[in-house]
């Protein structure tokens, strides 16, 4: 059934496209809708060729109105379809937040399970692509703070395919956050083996000194930081959360307890960001295993900067290493 030959090389954009294509093929209830998802294939080409293959009934160019798009998707889901909505950029999902918060997140609960909404809302998020203002927001904190939503964010090509398939197959609504700046990175992936369960973090790199807890666009940065840290004598583990809600307390706590030191890394602003939740819950659950407070390396508490200055805002290797250095190595361990 899959469009991709096993273990091929693809960009994340292509893997996402393959996931949509395979989902459309396998389940007639799956419908894609959004701005420019048709002939253009979306501004990031994630829906490339879908209208050509499945027709406009299955992959629909909508009018330009995000609340209308998500509201229409809700009605389609009420009828029994499984809509996949594309928001063009992160900040352009904001007009749809009322539909998301007041209906998508709540409909199952409001109807005692009678009207579940198996909607996937795909949102390209984060910066690092030289976009002008309003094109680089990272707003996962809004979604993660909303009970009733699953929040998924892949960081690898394989997960992009596997987690998107799982999200579309989920009977719960999923906010699927695609790290734009990883769209064009290539890697091998085997779609046949790659339907990932939602809610499982994965250790991307084992280590013995401390763990970097991260997700989405910051994963490659953390892996680079771990590489660089090795030169300075730290053997850092890197944990990719993959799913913010539901949160994989078990895996995260197991790793933190075994190492005693952790740094949370994400590019969204720090104050009220998802890193706060991660730090708080890890501390609650692993307090006596901690040799140092869980530190956070995040974007600053500022509106996203213009492209020429964005690298100062985004957590980079040095900023991560600075935090690692502050993990009170002198104290204990």
């Amino acid at each position, binding site marked *: 059934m899959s469009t991709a030959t096993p273990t091929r090389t693809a960009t994340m954009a292509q893997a996402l496209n393959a996931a949509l294509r395979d989902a459309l093929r396998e389940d007639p209830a799956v419908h894609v809708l959004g701005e420019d998802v048709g002939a253009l294939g979306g501004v990031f080409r994630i829906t490339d060729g879908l209208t050509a293959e499945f027709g*406009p009934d299955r992959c629909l*160019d909508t009018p330009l109105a995000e609340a209308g798009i998500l509201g229409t998707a809700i*009605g*389609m889901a009420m009828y029994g379809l499984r809509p996949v909505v594309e928001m063009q950029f992160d900040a352009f999902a904001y007009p749809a937040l009322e539909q998301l918060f007041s209906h998508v997140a709540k409909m199952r609960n*409001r109807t005692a399970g009678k*009207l579940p909404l198996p909607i996937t809302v795909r949102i390209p998020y984060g910066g690092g692509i030289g976009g002008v203002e309003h094109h680089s927001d990272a707003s996962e904190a809004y979604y993660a703070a909303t009970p009733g939503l699953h929040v998924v964010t892949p960081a690898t090509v394989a997960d992009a395919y596997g987690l998107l398939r799982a999200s579309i197959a989920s009977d719960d609504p999923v906010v699927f956050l695609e790290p734009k700046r990883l769209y064009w990175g290539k890697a091998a992936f085997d779609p046949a083996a790659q339907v990932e369960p939602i809610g499982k973090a994965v250790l991307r790199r084992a280590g013995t000194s401390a763990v970097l807890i991260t997700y989405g666009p910051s994963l490659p940065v953390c892996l680079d930081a771990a590489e660089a840290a090795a030169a300075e004598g730290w053997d850092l583990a890197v944990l990719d959360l993959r799913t913010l809600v539901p949160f994989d307390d078990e895996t995260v706590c197991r790793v933190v307890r075994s190492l005693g030191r952790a740094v949370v890394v994400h590019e969204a602003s720090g104050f009220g960001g998802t890193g706060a939740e991660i730090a708080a819950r890890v501390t609650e659950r692993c307090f006596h295993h901690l040799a140092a407070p869980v530190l956070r390396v995040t974007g600053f508490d500022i509106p996203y900067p213009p492209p020429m200055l964005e690298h100062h805002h985004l957590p980079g290797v040095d900023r991560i290493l600075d935090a690692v250095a502050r993990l009170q190595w002198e104290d204990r361990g």
Partner: protein
Amino acid sequence: MTVLDHRHHTAVPGWMPGATAPRTDPAPLLPDAAPVRVLGTPALEKQDPALLRELYRRLVVGRRYNQQATTLTKQGRLAVYPASTGQEACQIAAALALGERDWLFPSYRDTLAVVSRGVDPLEALTLLRGNAHTGYDPRATRTAPLCTPLATQAPHAVGLAHAARLGGDPVVALAMLGDGGTSEGDFHEALNFAAVLQAPVVFLVQNNGYAISVPLSAQSAAPTLAHKAVGYGMPGRLVDGNDAPAVHGVLAEAVERARTGGGPTLVEALTYRVEAHTNADDATRYRTEPEVAAWREHDPILLMERSLRGLGVLDDALVRESADEAEALAARMRAEFHAEPELDPMSLFTHVFAEPTQQLREQAAQLSAELAAEAEVQQ
């Protein structure tokens, strides 16, 4: 069948140089300036007497339902009730204009329409009683939950109708809104989507003159709210919302158009909210008694009675029958609402997701332990 093909001509010749005529002649879209009326006009004679009797009976029962629910708020048996007293013709006509497989998308004021659609009166009031959110199974009667965030249900109706049409299923969706709701962006987006997709939807705006305290004159400067249809390329209809056969006729026609591929219609029904916004509201702050009195004179039941008596459709037997049914319903409501509802605190966790997450299981365990501890203390 690909239903959306018509949209995918590449060029847009309708407005290319030298061909800038309107894409559709707007004139047939313009609603009549005077609202459609049936009662008291010769058109009444052509109506099906069975329908007229049915409308009358349901109006009387509906009025009693509204009154009893309001009384229950005073007795603390309902948390809140936004009465549709005075608007019963719209409520009943909306429910009757739809077939069984069609869907109704009510707003928070449309409990009576929900009940008229076949939902159990007790279940329809669960939200307002406060023991659960939606008390009924929306799929059973094809009635969406009562919707509080204004106009947000309108795009849901479009999506459902669109999905049905894609599946070749002749379902029509009817969304109910208030005059105030037309100001929200979601109203606009829903109408535009409906027209572009040619979705089988009917939008019924009950223009009752006020959005809580704000009069229509501060809500819109349009000639009528029905004229808003023009901007979407769909027909708009204006109807006397207190004239039950007129509302039913206009809605039935719109439903039929939608079902047969004619696309959406916007209907504005002129009516009046005789009670306050809800039991919590003080309407004397923003409107005058003479205004209310004038509308009481134009009451939907009164209008029916006057016209149907003359026509010989309404007789004492029907009046008695209707009154009895109304009283029986009221009695049932009183009885059922005087019993304390059964509450299960653990239900808080059961329908957040298909399966509770680990976190929710932990939280449920916490609440469960608390409840056990409380129970112990109370023993």
